[in-house]
């Protein structure tokens, strides 16, 4: 039987690569995002690359009422349902410093919105007793760094949410994987100067595929970030306060 994936934030660079990876395996895809034209293009691409079926649905993560049609559609599908959440937004820290009004939206895009969706779909996944949830968080959530701590705080919240969600869903056989990418070469990071250990969307998609196969709980991509963040988490606060990155 073909696997079905609901992909939220389907227009992001990483989601596109993930959708392609799933398409090549013959999955059915429901792409959800804001830019319908762009998603139509991705859906056509996925079909040509081997997807069993594709559809696109509008979602605005700041408007929970837009979740309902997607949840209804999911309910109408037979078999196991898999969900991958790529939504998020990252305003520059300096923009947030100038305008703290941006904080609420950042928390909604990265935490409240995705968590609300996952909470609402949880009973359906539990009832079906299996499937995967992939939640894309960030290494930025592992510690509050001077240059990016508002985004980091939102992602930290999402990582924590996923940790509890994993515990809950595992009781029904649903596997939840938290993905923590370091910098990825996408439109979001393009032109931000040289970032350390940058990886590509295709490499992230390949890492996610391997992680799903091995039923990993927390996946760092590029894998080197597991080591780096372990070290960064161990730095005592008085010393960490002197850092500027």
């Amino acid at each position, binding site marked *: 039987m073909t696997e079905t994936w609901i992909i939220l934030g389907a227009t992001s660079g990483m989601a596109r690569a993930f959708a392609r990876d799933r398409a*090549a395996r013959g999955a059915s895809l429901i792409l959800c995002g804001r830019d319908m*034209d*762009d998603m139509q*293009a*991705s859906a*056509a*691409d996925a079909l*040509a*690359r081997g997807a069993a079926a594709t559809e696109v649905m509008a979602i605005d993560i700041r408007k929970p009422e837009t979740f309902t049609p997607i949840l209804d559609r999911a309910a109408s599908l037979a078999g196991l349902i898999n969900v991958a959440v790529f939504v998020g937004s990252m305003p520059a820290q300096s923009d947030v410093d100038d305008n703290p009004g941006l904080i609420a939206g950042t928390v909604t895009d990265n935490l409240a919105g995705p968590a609300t969706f996952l909470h609402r779909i949880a009973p359906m996944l539990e009832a079906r007793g299996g499937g995967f949830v992939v939640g894309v968080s960030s290494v930025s959530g592992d510690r509050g760094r001077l240059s990016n701590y508002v985004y980091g705080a939102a992602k930290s919240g999402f990582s924590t949410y996923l940790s509890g969600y994993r515990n809950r869903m595992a009781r029904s056989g649903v596997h939840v994987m938290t993905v923590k990418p370091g910098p990825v070469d*996408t439109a979001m990071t393009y032109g931000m100067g040289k970032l350390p250990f940058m990886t590509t969307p295709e490499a992230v998609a390949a890492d996610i595929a391997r992680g799903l196969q091995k039923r990993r709980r927390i996946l760092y991509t590029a894998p080197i970030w597991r080591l780096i963040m372990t070290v960064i988490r161990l730095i005592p606060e008085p010393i960490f306060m002197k850092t500027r990155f």
Partner: protein
Amino acid sequence: MTPRRKPADLSGWGRALRASMDVSRPDRLADITCAPLTGPAIGARRSYGDAALRGQGMATDMTRLDRISGFDPRTGLAEVEAGARLGDLLAAFSRHGWMPKVLPGTGHATLGGAIALDVHGKNHHRDGSFGQHLAGLTLLLASGEQRQITPADDLFAATLGGLGQTGIVLRARLQLAKCPGNAARVTENRADGLDEHLSLLDDPKADYCVGWLDATASGADLGRGIVEVAKLVASEVRARPAGRKVPFDAPAFALSPPVVRLFNRAYFGRVPAEGRSIIRPVSDFFFPLDRIGDWNRLYGRRGFHQFQCVIPDRNIAALREMLARIAASGLASPLAVLKRMGAGRAGLISFPAEGYTLAVDFPNSRAAAALIATLHDLTRAAEGRIYFAKDSLCPPELVPAMYPELPRWQALVAEADPERTLLTDLVRRLKLREAP
């Protein structure tokens, strides 16, 4: 939303020519169709010289516009965004039993780059150039206007091989060819000298045919090499995992004459005198060098030049003269290729022409530049032409005689891009858009 720009110091694949430019890399076609153009498109920068450079200017990196917009598995007609890599398309379509009819020696080249150079493959003698297998394309003119172009339009012949000067290709419709499986049966035969080499290459029955040349051999061995003839077959072989990357710029001795001579002798001796036949994954057969990531770094920081020409049969003596000069110089690298070429081409200033084409890499040095200057003169005298995809040194005066349809191309380009927004460093250096 207009996508962000990034200042970048870029080079062509040969790393000998560089440019500082401002590059944007849109994710969506809508990002570039909303306003007049500000500069040319660039693809994967697999052109060796400055075809994909625009010093002190702006360019649009197309590599993220790489989606298949439509595909009919019954007819093999596919519509694809111009930033898609040909190797990716081969992998995607071969699963459905189809493939691009023409593939250059690297799978990293994008569809847009293959169009802008009207590239040729190992089957050129039979199947012609890349553009001869297109049903049409969507062109974004410098003004921001979009045009659907078919082979019947004048702009088609100006766009194919047209070095990005007519506009940005957004999408193209490809007529794919049937592909029996993912393997190629490759027969390798030694050619002990130039005459034998040329006659082995001139095999009208071969689907794919290419010669590797020992450019260090001289005297009786001059022109010796190995000719590969291949046919696609139905068997399925597992693609080998990607090979290694060259992690740093190699020191100069890596390609010094004694090392190259030794390497070439061993490479030649690898194939038994009676020849041999092997089965290889198609991607290894079409893109042998792609297995080594960033192999251009083997030439060290100064980079390298590739010289590629095509010489008509009637003046084939010039080829012997070139090879003698190259061997005597001791400057060639192991990468030297000889191929039979047919007459097929889709554009006014496309490279392909009936004859034999020679391509040789040289580490960048003053001596290499002097040798290449001699090779340019010999090409011109033999009524041949050089390939813009590889060029970084040709004197502009030689070009009009090599490309007799240049004036017609210039007229069409002047109409399509009257403000000269799309100039590239190559077009400026070779004065391609200036009246002689």
